[in-house]
């Protein structure tokens, strides 16, 4: 029989939901008040445009693409619109939803409300690491009607091989991008706002890592499906001090849950990890596993590593450390001018984001994943073979084989994070049932 744990709803839950709802509305309504709107990757240097003023509102493309995916009907229309315009189906799923939304000239809010026209940004600002990022916003700018785009190239290699030359390469681009933003918006850049944003960014990312680490406890205080909602603010606007504040509240509450033995689910009998963006339109995979098997998803290199700041690989490139990276305060670093701020944000992101490390090598992805399984005391891995993202899908099968060789059970199912047409529910349940039965895990209803 599965052990019973106490469960409680999260007190901060509604604050996170409200922030997300307001975020999309703020972007939509920004022009009513003469504010600045920018769009770009969730991996863009979010703190940098903050120096343009306190009324600067971003729209990050990947979470918007995921929001579109959640509304299956809207997503189908967006995808078909993009495909009819010649966009191939094997391109990034988020990108296709995003372009399709612009092409339909419709914008969807978090409650499913469709708004016309698509709110176009003053500029697009992104980074470039995967084959898609720069082109995504370059083309979006064309579709929106000559919206200028700036892409910062961050492809300087993994964090543990970072040196001053590589950091400088990124810092120089950030400096240049500030001048570019000033020209585009006609605004004078405020370094104090930049510093404030850089500090908030580090606080948000490092605090998220601390929260994720608490899921090493049994019972896990959080489960991944809820963490998808909780981590979303990092991909929306992590450099917003209000976001940092919310993560600190969540950290405090999660610590309290651990202290009092509050679980994410009341019958945790099986702990697993995942490794990719989920099929957003089919998050019932997670609820099925919870309800039928008492299986809790603890997290993933994606949920923890997309925007969490971790020490990562050691200097020798041999051991992965799932330990939260230090904030400027914890590192004893004082940031007092633009150069300091840009250098900090460049180095912090390049060195401590797992999502910017493993695209360079299967080896990194294998070592970090195995270490995660050990540290979070996971029984198995359930892997979404994600056709929607070339970057995150890279290395998946190499990781699978590596884990199996280390006697970690792995199940795989195929799908697409952003294209609901590429997910087969019946086959996925079949994989899950087969996997759990093969491990001798009985359905709760049969115990």
């Amino acid at each position, binding site marked *: 029989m599965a052990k019973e744990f106490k469960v409680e709803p999260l007190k901060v839950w509604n604050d996170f939901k409200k922030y997300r709802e307001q975020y999309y509305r703020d972007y939509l309504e920004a022009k009513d008040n003469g504010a600045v709107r920018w769009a770009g990757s969730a991996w863009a240097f979010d703190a940098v445009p903050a120096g343009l003023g306190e009324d600067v509102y971003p729209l990050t493309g990947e979470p918007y693409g995921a929001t579109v995916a959640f509304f299956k009907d809207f997503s189908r229309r967006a995808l078909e619109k993009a495909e009819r315009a010649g966009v191939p189906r094997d391109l990034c799923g988020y990108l296709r939803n995003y372009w399709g939304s612009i092409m339909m000239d419709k914008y969807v809010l978090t409650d499913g409300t469709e708004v016309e026209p698509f709110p176009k940004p003053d500029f697009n600002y992104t980074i470039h690491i995967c084959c898609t990022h720069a082109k995504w916003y370059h083309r979006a700018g064309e579709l929106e009607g000559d919206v200028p785009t700036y892409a910062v190239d961050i492809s300087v290699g993994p964090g543990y091989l970072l040196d001053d030359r590589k950091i400088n390469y990124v810092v120089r681009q950030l400096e240049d991008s500030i001048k570019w933003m000033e020209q585009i918006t006609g605004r004078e850049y405020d370094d104090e706002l930049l510093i404030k944003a850089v500090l908030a960014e580090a606080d948000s990312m490092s605090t998220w890592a601390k929260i994720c680490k608490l899921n090493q406890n049994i019972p896990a205080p959080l489960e991944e499906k809820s963490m998808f909602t909780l981590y979303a603010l990092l991909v929306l606007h992590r450099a917003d001090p209000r976001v940092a504040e919310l993560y600190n509240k969540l950290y405090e509450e999660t610590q309290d849950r651990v202290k009092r033995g509050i679980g994410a689910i009341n019958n945790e009998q099986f702990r697993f990890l995942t490794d990719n963006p989920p099929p957003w339109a089919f998050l019932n995979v997670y609820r099925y596993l919870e309800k039928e098997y008492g299986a809790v998803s603890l997290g993933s290199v994606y949920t923890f590593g997309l925007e969490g700041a971790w020490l990562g690989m050691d200097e020798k490139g041999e051991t992965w450390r799932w330990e939260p990276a230090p904030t400027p305060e914890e590192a004893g670093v004082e940031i007092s001018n633009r150069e300091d701020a840009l250098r900090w944000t460049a180095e912090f992101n390049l060195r401590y984001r797992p999502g910017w490390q493993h695209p360079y090598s299967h080896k990194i992805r294998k070592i970090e994943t195995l270490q995660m399984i050990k540290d979070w005391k996971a029984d198995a891995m359930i892997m979404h073979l994600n056709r929607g993202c070339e970057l995150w899908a890279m290395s998946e099968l190499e990781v699978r084989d590596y884990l199996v060789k280390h006697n970690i059970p792995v199940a795989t199912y195929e799908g697409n994070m952003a294209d609901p047409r590429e997910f087969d529910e019946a*086959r996925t349940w079949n994989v899950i049932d*087969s996997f759990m*039965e093969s491990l001798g895990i009985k359905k709760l209803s049969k115990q």
Partner: protein
Amino acid sequence: MITAGIDVGSKYTKAVVLKNGAEIVGYANIRTGMDHEKSAREALEEALKAAGINRDQVDKIIATGFGKTSVPFADDEISQVVAAGKGGYFARPSTRTVIEVGAEESRGIKLAEDGKIRDFALADKCAAGAGSFTDAMARYLEVPLEEFGQLSLRSKGAAAMNAQCVIFAESEVVSLVHQNVPKEEISRAIHDAIADRVASIVRRVGIEDDVLVVGGLANDPGFIDSLKRELNTEVYLPEIIAPEYIPALGAALMEE
């Protein structure tokens, strides 16, 4: 103790009746109709009749196969992977790799020495590595299914076939027919293509001897010949019962 396993497959429904978890006393195989419950009931009745056992003497019924949830009179259900693994190990305890090829799916299952499942891989969304592929191709070549495999064995060479998909394979077969390539060679090319597809699935879990092939397509000697060449190892068929009954047997064994 009498147990029965029912495997509701997409093409055939199979039932196996087992005595004391050791002795196969009856089995039956009927075409799966639109009404899965009816098919399951009929298969069970026929298997019981063959065993000379009444329905009320059966202690437990376990369903498997794609239609396993449509058998309301079953006491329990198990996945095809577990059923095929369990049945394969029972049929040949030295088995470490089970390859199951049914009408619509193929799967590779890796077993531990004690018969427990160590790993598995499923063919997903593709019929090119499944029995329905041979059905379609035999129909196109106007060769009875039971002769299709023998035809392949008589081939003196193999025509090249690149398609990984039933739909595209058919157009390749059309081309080969128009080029007057002998049917034997076309049959061999088709079997090689299926074996290649199945092997690629099974290689995901690693191939370890003994390799046991189960499921309906294991009855096709052309496929078995191609698979042996593709895997470059000996493959075995169950000796205690025909290969298509193995998952139903595994289901009947679940009570043990």
